[in-house]
C-alpha cells in the first residue's frame, strides 16, 4: 500500500528543496551573461545533485560526484575559460541569435519527457533503506560484476589522456 503523494515525507521534502536548488542553478548556468558565473553556478548544481544522491541513499555516487564533477571537471572548464581569453565581465555575446528556437525545443523536450514520465511512474514508490549505496557494496559490485567495464574504462582514460596531449602539441603539424 504505497503512501500518497501528499503529504510528502521527510526525505521527500529535503529532496524537493535540493531539486529546486539544482533547477534554479541549472537555469542560471544556461542564461547568465557572465561566463565565469556560469561555471560557478554549475558547481552549485553539482553540489545539490550530490545532496540528492545522498537522500536517495547512494552515498558512494554522491561523494564521487563531489570529487570528480565539482572538483575536477569544473576546474578543467575554468582552465579552459581562462586559456581561451573569455570575457570575464558581463558579455552580451554569449547567447546565439536563435535562442528562442532553442527555448522552444527545450520546452517541447521538457513537455514530452515530463508527461511520459509522470504517466508511467505515478504510482512507483521506493522505500529508502540506508546501506544500499555504501562504498563497500558498490566497491564489491564493481570489482566482481563490473570489473571488465572498469578495466576498459581505465584504457579509455588512457586513450583520452594521450589524445588530449597529442591534440595540444604545437610541434605536430599536418602534412604540407
Amino acid at each position: 500500500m504505497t503512501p500518497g503523494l501528499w503529504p510528502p515525507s521527510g526525505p521527500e521534502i529535503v529532496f524537493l528543496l535540493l531539486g529546486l536548488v539544482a533547477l534554479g542553478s541549472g537555469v542560471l548556468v544556461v542564461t547568465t551573461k557572465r561566463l565565469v558565473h556560469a561555471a560557478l553556478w554549475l558547481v552549485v548544481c553539482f553540489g545539490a545533485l550530490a545532496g540528492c544522491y545522498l537522500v536517495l541513499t547512494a552515498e558512494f555516487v554522491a561523494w564521487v560526484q563531489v570529487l570528480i564533477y565539482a572538483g575536477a571537471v569544473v576546474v578543467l572548464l575554468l582552465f579552459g575559460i581562462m586559456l581561451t581569453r573569455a570575457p570575464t565581465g558581463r558579455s552580451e555575446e554569449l547567447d546565439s541569435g536563435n535562442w528562442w528556437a532553442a527555448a522552444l525545443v527545450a520546452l517541447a523536450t521538457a513537455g514530452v519527457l515530463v508527461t511520459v514520465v509522470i504517466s508511467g511512474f505515478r504510482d512507483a514508490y521506493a522505500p529508502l533503506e540506508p546501506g544500499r549505496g555504501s562504498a563497500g557494496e558498490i566497491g564489491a559490485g564493481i570489482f566482481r560484476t563490473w570489473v571488465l567495464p572498469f578495466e576498459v574504462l581505465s584504457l579509455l582514460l588512457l586513450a583520452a589522456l594521450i589524445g588530449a596531449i597529442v591534440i595540444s602539441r604545437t610541434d605536430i603539424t599536418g602534412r604540407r
Partner: protein
Amino acid sequence: MHVVYPVVLSALLFSIGVYGVLARRNAILVMLSIELMLNAVNLNLVAFDIWAGDRLHSGQALALFVIVIAAAEVGLGLAIVLAVFRTRKTIDVDRLRALSERERADDDAEART
C-alpha cells in the same frame, strides 16, 4: 520516496541542458550544458537503481562509469577547443563556419569569376 520526484527533476534538468547546448555561443558554455545533461542521466540511473533494489547495483555502477566518461570527454573536448582557439582565435561556435557547405559554394563561385 516516490520515484516521480527524481525522475521529473532529471527530465527538467535534461531540457535545461538541451537549451544550453542550442542557445549558447561559447564552446565552453556548450560543454557546461552537456555536463548538465549527463548529470540528469546520472540522477535517473541512480533513482531507478534504488527503486528496483538491484542486487548488482547496475544503475549506480553505470552512473559511476558515466562520471568517468564525462571526465574523459571534458579533458578531450577542452583540448579540441584550445586547438581551435589557437588557430582561429575564436571559440564562438556561430562564427566557426569553415566547413559549412554554403560558404564553400560561395568561395568556389568567387574563385571561378
